[in-house]
């Protein structure tokens, strides 16, 4: 065995750039950047293998602040650019930074097709429920009736639930975290990094300039534990300040139950992120839309039995080359009926 000198381990600093960060002070994007910069060095991947691709929006400035290969592309198209990159170089670790407008409005089509193909990309959706960069129009995740610059009388658009959309597109990994829940966010990023295939992570992000307090009911110290439920694989769905509330399956409906008085953990739904039925993940995703229910965070789905797109493509090329032999250009040019004209 040869003795290779181990490379010096990377640190958070290695992923910071010398570029002046141009997000507004107090923007939730800082926290996300910090979490990513903390997790990347832990992954044991050489720095040059990381590529961060983004679209357009405040959130899409992300690559400029990561000292990796980075590509700030055009509005909505990051998944398509990243797909080309990943197919051409499956060995690279490709992350996509995108916003709710970028990914779900102009880039909605690319998002769903990336997910159904299961391209090995890690997508971080910065969901601030607003168009930040264009200074405050409603987005596809803004709530019905929301007053913004372009909806002075309230939005008439029904919003997307990004998690539902991803599940509907047959995403193999769907998770949610929150900018200010640093520990949870980092854990979620680690899980994301480990997934093969498309990983779609909605990060609830505060835009303190155009949509401040958008997630306050989830992030406020006092409200947090009552309004958020943390999903963990194989664990019952329990939440509440005193860990005294749970989610139970009643027929085809979920219900919130108070533990005690004959109701125990055994009666609760046990989270199964590998559940093969979309109905299960949909039920969790839609929970928050019902009054009195908490918002789930964590990994909603993690399927590990679907091949990654780039692997299928490489395998097919390999198979054809095995069967037909590597292409010979002269043969290709002379294929079919040929004839010779003699001098």
């Amino acid at each position, binding site marked *: 065995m040869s003795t290779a000198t181990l490379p010096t381990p990377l640190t958070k600093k290695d992923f910071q750039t010398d*570029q002046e960060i141009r997000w507004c002070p107090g923007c939730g994007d800082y926290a996300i950047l910090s979490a990513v910069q903390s997790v990347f060095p832990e992954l044991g991947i050489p720095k040059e293998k990381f590529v961060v691709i983004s679209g357009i929006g405040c959130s899409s400035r992300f690559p400029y602040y990561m000292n990796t290969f980075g590509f700030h592309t055009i509005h909505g198209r990051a998944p398509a*650019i990243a797909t080309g990159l990943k*197919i*051409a170089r499956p060995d*690279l670790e490709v992350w996509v930074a995108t916003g709710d407008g970028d990914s779900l409005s102009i880039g909605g089509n690319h998002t769903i097709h990336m997910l159904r193909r299961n391209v090995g990309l890690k997508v971080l959706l910065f969901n601030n429920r607003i168009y930040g960069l264009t200074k405050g129009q409603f987005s596809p995740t803004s709530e019905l009736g929301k007053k913004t610059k372009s909806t002075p009388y309230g939005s008439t658009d029904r919003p997307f639930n990004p998690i539902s959309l991803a599940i509907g597109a047959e995403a193999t990994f769907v998770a949610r975290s929150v900018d200010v829940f640093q520990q949870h966010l980092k854990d979620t990023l680690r899980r994301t990094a480990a997934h093969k295939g498309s990983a779609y992570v909605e990060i609830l992000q505060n835009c303190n300039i155009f949509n401040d307090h958008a997630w306050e009911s989830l992030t406020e110290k006092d409200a947090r534990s009552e309004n958020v439920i943390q999903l963990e694989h194989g664990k019952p769905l329990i939440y509440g300040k005193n860990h005294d509330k749970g989610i139970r399956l009643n027929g085809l409906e979920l219900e919130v139950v108070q533990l005690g008085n004959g109701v125990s953990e055994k009666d609760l739904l046990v989270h199964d992120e590998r559940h093969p039925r979309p109905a299960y993940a949909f039920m969790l995703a839609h929970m928050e839309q019902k009054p009195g229910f908490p918002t789930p965070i964590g990994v909603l789905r993690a399927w590990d039995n679907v091949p990654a797109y780039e692997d299928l493509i490489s395998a097919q090329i390999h198979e054809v080359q095995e069967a037909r032999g590597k292409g010979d250009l002269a043969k*290709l040019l*002379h294929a079919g*009926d040929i004839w010779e*004209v003699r001098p």
Partner: protein
Amino acid sequence: MSTTVVRPPQRKRETVERAVIRFCGDSGDGMQITGNQFTNTVALYGNDLATFPDYPAEIRAPAGTIPGVSGFQVHFSSSDAYTPGDAMDVLIAMNPAALKVNLADLKPNGILIVNVDDFGETDLRKAQMTSNPLEDHTLDAYRLFSVELTKLTRAALKETGLDAKSMDRCKNFFALGMCYWLYNRSMDSTLRWIEDKFKSKPVLVQANCLAMQAGYSYCEATEAFQISYEIPPAKLAPGVYRNVSGNSALAMGFVAASQKAGIPLFLGSYPITPASDILHALSAYKNFGVITFQAEDEIAAITSAIGAAYAGALGITTTSGPGMALKTEALGLAVAVELPLVVCDVQRGGPSTGLPTKTEQADLLQALFGRNSEAPVPVLAPCTPGDCFWIALEASRIAIKYMVPVIILSDGYLANGAEPWKIPEVSELPEIPVRFETNPVDFKPYRRNPETLARPWAIPGTPGLEHRIGGIEKQDVTGNINYEPLNHERMVRLRAAKVEAIVQEVPDVVPAGDPSGDLLIVAWGSTYGPITAAMKTVRTKGHRVGHVHLRHLNPLPKNLGEVIGRYDKVLVPEMNMGQLVMLLRAKYLVDAQGYNKIQGKPFKKSEIEQKIHEMLD
């Protein structure tokens, strides 16, 4: 009627220089296959040739109607065949609608073969004909052969056990057999093709072969034809030849480019007529490591190719007009981030959906200027189907050398038209050197090569070269985000200068015909054939005419202005409203005249001749 023949003592065989034959029928009649087979056979025999497949946008318009007519024209010759031919010597019309649509192009006294079995009252009504042309003397000016194609085919196939419908599907091969007899051609290559095509259904091999042989024997036995023709092989330059269409040549050209460059080929594409065949062809070349990505739309098609180019692959995307429009914004990105990319636009009639299956050259200005702000790109145009191969190589080479997106403008006529193509030796192909940056010492993503002004190709995965690129304006050299006014102007000028620098790759133009004189024809793209053909006859009449055919539309050849100055008049034939002519007038302050045809059809040789005479006589 000409079918009542007095048996001649011995049938004549006449040697002629060239012939033009058109097969036409319903979209379901297999006319494209028939035409392709005939083409292949005459090519193998050694004739020069040009073809013109003309098919409807509808896959199956109602049978027997005018919109359902599909045609395939072949011009084959013992000298040269620059165009598919203005008028036909032989027309095969499988039904009244096909006759109605195509008759006008048949030469007086030309041979007209019709399937008389499909000239019933309902057939005539479907073609909106009130009287039967086979009986009302409208066809007196032609040599009419009314053949019971359906009945004779069924009779020939009665032993096969096929049902009537399946038998009727073989009648195109009966007609093809007749044409092989008429031009003294061997059926071997088509027999081989049938065997291969239907190898999983032996009964269809038998049926189609029988039908073709029956057509051949029919001519032999009935002596309906008193004459057959001989067209000796053409004197093409020595070498090994094959037939290629523009689309297949482009596909091979891209594979060749990838092999010469030693980097994988990545095609991002979304199906669209008439470009889809490039996607089909490249998808079959997986053994060359070609990655084909059928994207969700044209935007994903081009952006995935940009992603692949960023990764170090030869990224290409293929489309036609409407798809080209969708790629606009991403092309601007490729200009800004200075990555190599080849965008191939197989032009068709427009605007919007326009004429999906018909040809046009009206995307030139879009290719040159159709992006927001100052976003110059090199534009190349092949002039014949075979030239598509060389243009694909040239575009790829320029894209890589100059780190720039390059547009290829092909068109529907080149895409589907075919010609004999002299197969090059692999060693004759241009080298395409690729250099990926690897040196991290003082690496700057926008530091330029002084000769080409290209920035380095620094692909992800290279240690020490981590950097960011994007569509936001960049600082010269460092590539950092920069909004300073003077830096922006500098970057705009640098991007333009880089594209201008490509002029060093563009050979000086040497006019065909007279090097100076009365008239210079300047043109581009698929008009090459008819102009070249017209030039021959016009010059024999004493006019001093030159012809410059531009393969590089941006940058234009250095000496073009000087060459233009050597002639009294300048004519610019184009299948658009006058796009190149506008550029030439603007750039060279020359009173160039446009000649514009916007009918979804290529120019005829005679049209160009006439226009030249109009200008000179």
